[in-house]
């Protein structure tokens, strides 16, 4: 799908409060909590579904358009 814009999951770490909602609903285990903050642990696996951004209460994770 060459036309589809590439998006990259991006973390605004200072705003993350470590609730774990994004980690729980990520269907591909891209994310993990480390030291109370979200970490991208498997970027390759990300399917850019946006489940993390949709439910992040702190606007700390989103899909950035490249």
């Amino acid at each position, binding site marked *: 799908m060459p036309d589809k814009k590439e998006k990259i999951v991006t973390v605004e770490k200072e705003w993350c*409060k470590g609730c774990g909602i994004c980690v729980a609903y990520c269907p591909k285990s891209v994310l993990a909590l480390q030291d109370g903050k979200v970490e991208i642990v498997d970027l390759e696996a990300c399917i850019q579904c946006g489940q993390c951004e949709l*439910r*992040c*209460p*702190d*606007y700390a994770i*989103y899909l950035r358009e490249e």
Partner: protein
Amino acid sequence: MPSELVKNYFRTQNLPHIWCPGCGNGIVTRALVKAVDSLGLDKDKVCVVSGIGCSSRAPGYLDFNTLHTTHGRALAFATGVKMANPELKVIVITGDGDSSAIGGNHLIHACRRNIDITTVVFNNNTYGMTGGQFSPTTPTGDKGTTAPYGNVDPNFDLCNLATAAGASYVARGTVFAANQLEKNIIAGIQNKGFSFIEAMSTCPTYYGRKNRKGNAVDMTTYLKENAINKVAWDKLPEEKKEGKFVIGELHSIERPEYTEQYDKLIASLRKEG
């Protein structure tokens, strides 16, 4: 750097917000902003009004005309704003206690007038700002700091209340089903009349802890597993509704809108004069 949506609609200098880790209020606020974005509303013509409580701190983070008022009175202030300048898109952000306890009278009368205001209730089933007392939407039997043995009060169904009082658009959503919530808010803003959207939120800090509902993820998953869409709900036998609740668009009718009626009155008087 935050997302484009956040950059465009939030006062990012005031972020991060004051809400606790895992609080659903941020999710509802984002759904509301997404709805405004989807509709392409002019930010200068949007006025967001709130009362007092956790949810009511939301307008301070939003880049519109914003009015953080007194406890329970958001709808009364908003009624003044809308009446005085009907050109404004007026959105009220309120909580379960703010809207249905101390502000219950303003809620039923705003519904009755069918004034063109979209109200989004962040329902977290508790008074979070004061530390977790039971509210009019705390389920009977659940605990709060003022219901240490379990709440003996029956609880309100806010959507039924709004429908009965005359709101022309009523919907319920959850912080799990945030996309659907956004769609309901869009429909609510588009409705020419009083729109009432109950957003089932989560308070892991007080309500969750006090009632052993688990962490933010557990509470969000609870909303996922127990919310049933209106279409499916209507086909469900009564016994299967036990412990579940309905979400989606619950009520939508056409009724004369208040400020339009008043403007007609002005026009007729001026024609006579």
